[in-house]
């Protein structure tokens, strides 16, 4: 069996190639590369907007979305993030509605 696209590498193949290069499994390579992408997004935001937690959360969400779009992170991670955000907003909304 052989691949259709011969010698060209797709962006989704980068974790596999990275894992082969350093001698780790593809899943580990996907996690490491996803963390790198997230830190690239989030660290500058944390430095430039130190006290703006909302912006940190937005940038983290965007970074995770990029990793999922690249195929490096599983899709269910986005649903987990949506669940956490929904809980946070529900807490805030409950405070507003009940006045506590």
């Amino acid at each position: 069996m052989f691949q259709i696209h011969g010698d060209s590498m797709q962006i989704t193949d980068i974790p596999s190639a990275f894992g082969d290069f350093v001698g780790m499994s593809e899943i580990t390579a996907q996690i490491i590369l996803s963390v790198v992408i997230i830190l690239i997004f989030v660290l500058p935001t944390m430095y430039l907007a130190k006290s703006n937690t909302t912006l940190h959360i937005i940038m983290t969400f965007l970074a995770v979305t990029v990793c999922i779009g690249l195929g490096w992170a599983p899709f269910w991670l986005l649903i987990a993030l949506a669940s956490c955000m929904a809980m946070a907003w529900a807490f805030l909304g409950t405070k507003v509605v009940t006045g506590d």
Partner: protein
Amino acid sequence: MAEYKGFAFAIMFILFFSALVTMIPTGLYGSGEEPDLVTPVEPILLAGFSVSENWSAGDLVETNPQYEYSLGGWDWYFYHRATGSIELGSKIYWGGVLYLGQLDSQEFISPGGENKGYSITCDDLDEDADNGTVRYDLYSISSGNSYGGMVFYWNTTAYTYSQDAFDNDALYYLHGMGFNEQATNNIGFLLVSLLFFQVPDVPAEINVFLITPTWASIIYILWFIIKEMIPFV
């Protein structure tokens, strides 16, 4: 008062979670995997596939030549019978959970745009193939929706006709679907699948963690409503 806070929290959590999940674009499943094929085929035949399942004639169950697989959020039965008919159908689940044996058959549309019906034969493959490869577009008989495409291919150097390749377990099949054709493109299906722990490509344990807060909220809301309707509690 705490019960009212809990009720408000549960309502808002369900509303926000549903809204966020419905806003997730379907393209975030990634660019899809490249299928491994035994014989090279023209890349154009695989255009638009983000997920695929491929098997050979040797993978068919002998007693009733069929191959069962899951793709794009549906469960499929593929038949290539000894009588020569080739059919493909997806399982119909009543209420999303109950399978009573019914299949939603697919119509094969040839590269020339001819509707070959729900059953084709090796003669059709030989007629439509170009150098041992042919792709049929699939459309549901019941709904008319597209369910991707099916590629048949064999090595014409070894076998001139597809029937010869089939007899020697050298006929290969590939069913591919694009993003828009997968079940999870339907957000309603995604939410129902989440609630019943049946989201495609998600481990069951992860599915439990994801949906436990939603079920807890639903159960709390029902309990609160019933409690409020009973004046003596």
